[in-house]
């Protein structure tokens, strides 16, 4: 914490002098407490909250859950819902990978699906998307992962529409009724910071292990952005369009159906894009609760250190992500075009016709040619073993080994571990005071109080040390990410072409499900602390670079021109004009990097950590719902603190600069 606040340039955040003074006082108090602790003067009760003082949150939550679950009959309700969902999932499972359930038609031949994907791609974005659509499915089939991929897809095609419908409905309600909006907002921000393990356990308890729980967790995870985008889109419908609807004599329902929703199409489709991407990210992660599919396969391959196969699965996941992202984004920008008069029905619906014909043709073909339906284990082109040997021989090159060895030895031993030990050595109250000082300095009094309360709750949870270790991983990863990412972004932002390239790379990287970031980390560093930091680091670097480039590129041209005319050198221009103006946007990126890091650090528990994630993962094996929630809330509270403080600062700063 202290390291972080010292790192930021002090000049930019001094709206009120009094605020800074309070922050310094808080920080000084924290320092005094820490020094006292080092001198052995601090009573043990002030160092860590004593065990006896920790309120039994977990049993209390457990009791509350049990009450809701059994006494209020929620379990009966969810089990009832489960049956409906189970039925739908069975249908998609049958169609996509031939699970023996009604309607017993499947599996649909992979060639048919690839053909339809190609036609859909062509309809949405021409030849390139057609190639991408068909290509991804062909690759998946040829590499021998068709069944796993379809297991994943069978949940996705249920969860995504469900999340869309619920999100749209809640978004409309939140837009119509202020009260709903006010009630939803805090829940949404909490949901967005809650670690995904916390979604998983309740899902398992209420919806049984397997695809149903996976689908539920995935759905819930993907709802918040849909709500936000719906509300945003509806608010942005131009007043005149609405008035035109009213003057046309539209009733409220007609207005919503024919005027508001179609006019908010763009935002709603952006929401759809986000729903799909989040669903994919989450559905892969449901491997942790035993849902079969690509995620489960990846988990088991990484577990047994089969890097070649992991790598291939990683590529499949990434390709699926890129395809879904590109297609849904192409849908966002696709505008209706009129047909000339007298165009026949066939020509107007050419894509539909061709898609149907191809689908039918390949289904028929599949009846006669087995390879067109399914590619067996021995027929696939998987090169797992070969890639394994490549990776191992690459890692065995002396130079590579020297670099990874250096990173492990120097960075880990000399920097990271001492930093961690330092954080752990700070007495709890001093730590909280330091966080409050940080919040005071950047945000203000309200933020400082909230930060104090949030971290105080973490202290009382009884998981302080693990929380601090989590925080340590997050902070060090983001700090290193900033060290690498910021210069890179600044350099890239100097040219139009490089900015575009790097933004494209970031956009693409952002669509990758977080899980795949573990693959390179494990490949390079094995099962070590450094691998954890590395996976968080690359994941968090993406928003950091992205927002920095965007912030710098969107500095108004008149301002940089004014600087040029004032005779500023490139350096002066950067420091005096561009960076100060880009800083609010960069702060948003920094905040997102932190949120991503909090997310990733939990997943990294898979590699083996000593933080909250590890404990969380352990709870998944049992039914320890109370503990699961306490741990999840610890992560969420820490993440929310940063979120509140940094976003407040960015907002204030934007307003002060008149960039709103």
């Amino acid at each position, binding site marked *: 914490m202290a390291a972080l606040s010292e790192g930021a340039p002090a000049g930019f955040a001094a709206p009120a002098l009094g605020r800074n003074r309070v922050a310094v006082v808080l920080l000084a108090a924290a320092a005094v407490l820490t020094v006292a602790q080092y001198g052995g003067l601090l009573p043990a009760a002030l160092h860590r909250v004593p065990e006896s003082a920790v309120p039994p949150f977990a049993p209390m939550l457990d009791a509350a859950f049990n009450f809701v679950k059994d006494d209020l009959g929620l379990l009966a309700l969810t089990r009832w819902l489960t049956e409906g969902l189970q039925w739908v999932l069975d249908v998609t499972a049958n169609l996509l990978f031939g699970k023996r359930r009604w309607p017993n038609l499947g599996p649909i031949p992979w060639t048919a699906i690839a053909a339809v994907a190609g036609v859909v791609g062509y309809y949405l974005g021409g030849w390139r998307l057609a190639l991408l659509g068909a290509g991804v499915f062909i690759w998946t089939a040829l590499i021998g992962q068709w069944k796993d991929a379809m297991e994943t897809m069978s949940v996705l095609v249920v969860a995504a529409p469900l999340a869309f419908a619920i999100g749209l409905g809640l978004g409309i309600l939140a837009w119509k009724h202020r009260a709903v909006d006010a009630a939803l907002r805090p829940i949404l921000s909490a949901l967005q910071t809650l670690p995904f393990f916390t979604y998983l356990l309740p899902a398992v308890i209420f919806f049984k292990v397997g695809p149903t729980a996976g689908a539920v967790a995935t759905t819930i995870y993907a709802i918040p952005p849909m709500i936000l985008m719906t509300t945003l889109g509806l608010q942005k419908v131009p007043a*005149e369009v609405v008035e035109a609807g009213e003057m046309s004599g539209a009733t409220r329902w*007609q207005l919503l159906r024919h*005027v508001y929703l179609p006019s908010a199409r763009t935002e709603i489709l952006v929401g759809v894009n986000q729903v799909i991407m989040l669903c994919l990210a989450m559905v892969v992660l449901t491997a942790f609760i035993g849902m079969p599919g690509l995620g489960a396969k990846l988990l088991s391959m990484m577990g047994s250190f089969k890097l070649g196969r992991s790598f291939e699965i990683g590529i499949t996941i990434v390709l699926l992500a890129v395809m879904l992202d590109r297609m849904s984004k192409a849908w966002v920008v696709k*505008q209706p075009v009129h047909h000339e008069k007298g165009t026949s029905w066939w020509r107007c619906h050419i894509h539909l016709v061709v898609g149907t014909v191809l689908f039918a043709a390949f289904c028929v073909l599949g009846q006669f040619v087995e390879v067109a339906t399914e590619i067996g284990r021995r027929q696939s082109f998987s090169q797992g073993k070969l890639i394994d040997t490549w990776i191992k021989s690459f890692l065995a090159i002396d130079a590579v080994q020297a670099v990874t060895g250096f990173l492990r030895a120097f960075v880990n031993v000399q920097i990271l571990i001492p930093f961690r030990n330092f954080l752990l050595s700070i007495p709890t109250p001093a730590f909280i005071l330091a966080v409050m000082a940080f919040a005071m300095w950047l945000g203000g009094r309200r933020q400082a109080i909230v930060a104090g309360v949030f971290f105080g709750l973490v202290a009382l949870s009884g998981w302080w040390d693990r929380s601090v270790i989590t925080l340590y991983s997050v902070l060090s990863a983001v700090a290193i990410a900033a060290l690498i990412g910021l210069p890179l972004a600044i350099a890239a932002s100097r040219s139009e072409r490089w900015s575009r390239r790097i933004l494209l790379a970031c956009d693409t990287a952002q669509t990758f499900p977080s899980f795949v970031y573990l693959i390179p980390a494990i490949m390079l560093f094995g099962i070590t602390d450094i691998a954890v930091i590395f996976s968080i680091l690359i994941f968090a670097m993406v928003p950091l670079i992205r927002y920095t480039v965007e912030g710098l590129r969107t500095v108004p041209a008149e301002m940089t021109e004014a600087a040029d005319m004032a005779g500023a050198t490139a350096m002066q221009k950067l420091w005096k004009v561009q960076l100060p103006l880009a800083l609010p946007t960069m702060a948003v990126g920094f905040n997102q990097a932190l949120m991503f890091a909090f997310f990733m650090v939990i997943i990294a528990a898979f590699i083996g950590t000593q933080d909250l994630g590890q404990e969380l993962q352990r709870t998944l094996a049992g039914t320890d719902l109370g503990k699961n929630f306490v741990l999840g809330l610890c992560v969420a509270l820490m993440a929310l603190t940063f979120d509140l403080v940094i976003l407040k600062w960015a907002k204030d700063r934007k307003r002060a600069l008149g960039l709103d």
Partner: protein
Amino acid sequence: MTDQSVIAARNVWKLFGPDPKGYLAGMEAGRSFDAIRADGYIAGVKDVSIEVARGEILVIMGLSGSGKSTLVRCFSRLHEVSGGTVSIEGTDIGALSERDLIELRRSKMGMVFQSFGLLPHRTVLENVAFPLEMRGQDRHARRERALEVVKLVGLEGREDYFPRELSGGQQQRVGIARSLAIEPDIWFLDEPFSALDPLIRREMQDEFLRLQRMLSKTIVFITHDFDEALRLADRIAIMKDGGVEQCATPDEIVLNPATPYVAKFTEDVDKARVVHAGSLARRDLTGEGVPVDAKASVQDLARMLVQDARAAIPVTRNGAPIGAMPRDEALDILVGGT
């Protein structure tokens, strides 16, 4: 309220703020715009009483923020008024239920918007048919009618285009067609041509006059362009800070501006083009010789005024004499005197 007035506004107020009705009830009369603003309210429309006769074109004119758009939205109850009443053909629309209000809009009112307000996902034809669809007309009938109106505004052949495939002028033609689809009696136009290029604007004004000659609707037309107002209006209401400064015929406004604010507007106007023989004619005078028509502007009569020697020239309206116009007064206007 008189028999033939279609729209009648009585002491209409529209305040924006936390509790407009409560504030208005406790407010003393004659409070100024700035005083109201100091109290935390914005007076969008301030104590306006105005009537629009059947078949008349009333142009509401004012700078941006003067409340003209707000006023016209009070006429159609797109805004709920904070005080006073608005009656359409004798019915207080403030008292209508939602269903009756929708019925009124479906049968009697059409409106054209500054930024067109077209639905981006619908074709020209579907946009035009939109009010008919809301009304629940069947597909065939609404297609028939929509085609008819699209033809009326000269967009034949573009029926299947989407709004973004059209130019600004064409988009506004769609807006006009849509507002006419239900054959409304009352036509509201909120700065319909402001977003268009000057050349197109002129063309659209001609188009508008052509349509009005064919359809003779009761029209409330909003503009911030005084020339446009003079060109189109039967009567002009000039607004400032939510209140109406003067409401009169163009001739009257140019000849006798009621306030310094109105006078400032009329300063640079070529009066000869605005003032008509009819408004200069005096009942007590009688002239000799060939009469002139009341609808002729001073500029139309320029040559004759200069060459003629009569002191008073008789004026007729629709063939009947209404008095005579003093020639020197007309000449004063022609040469720019007062």
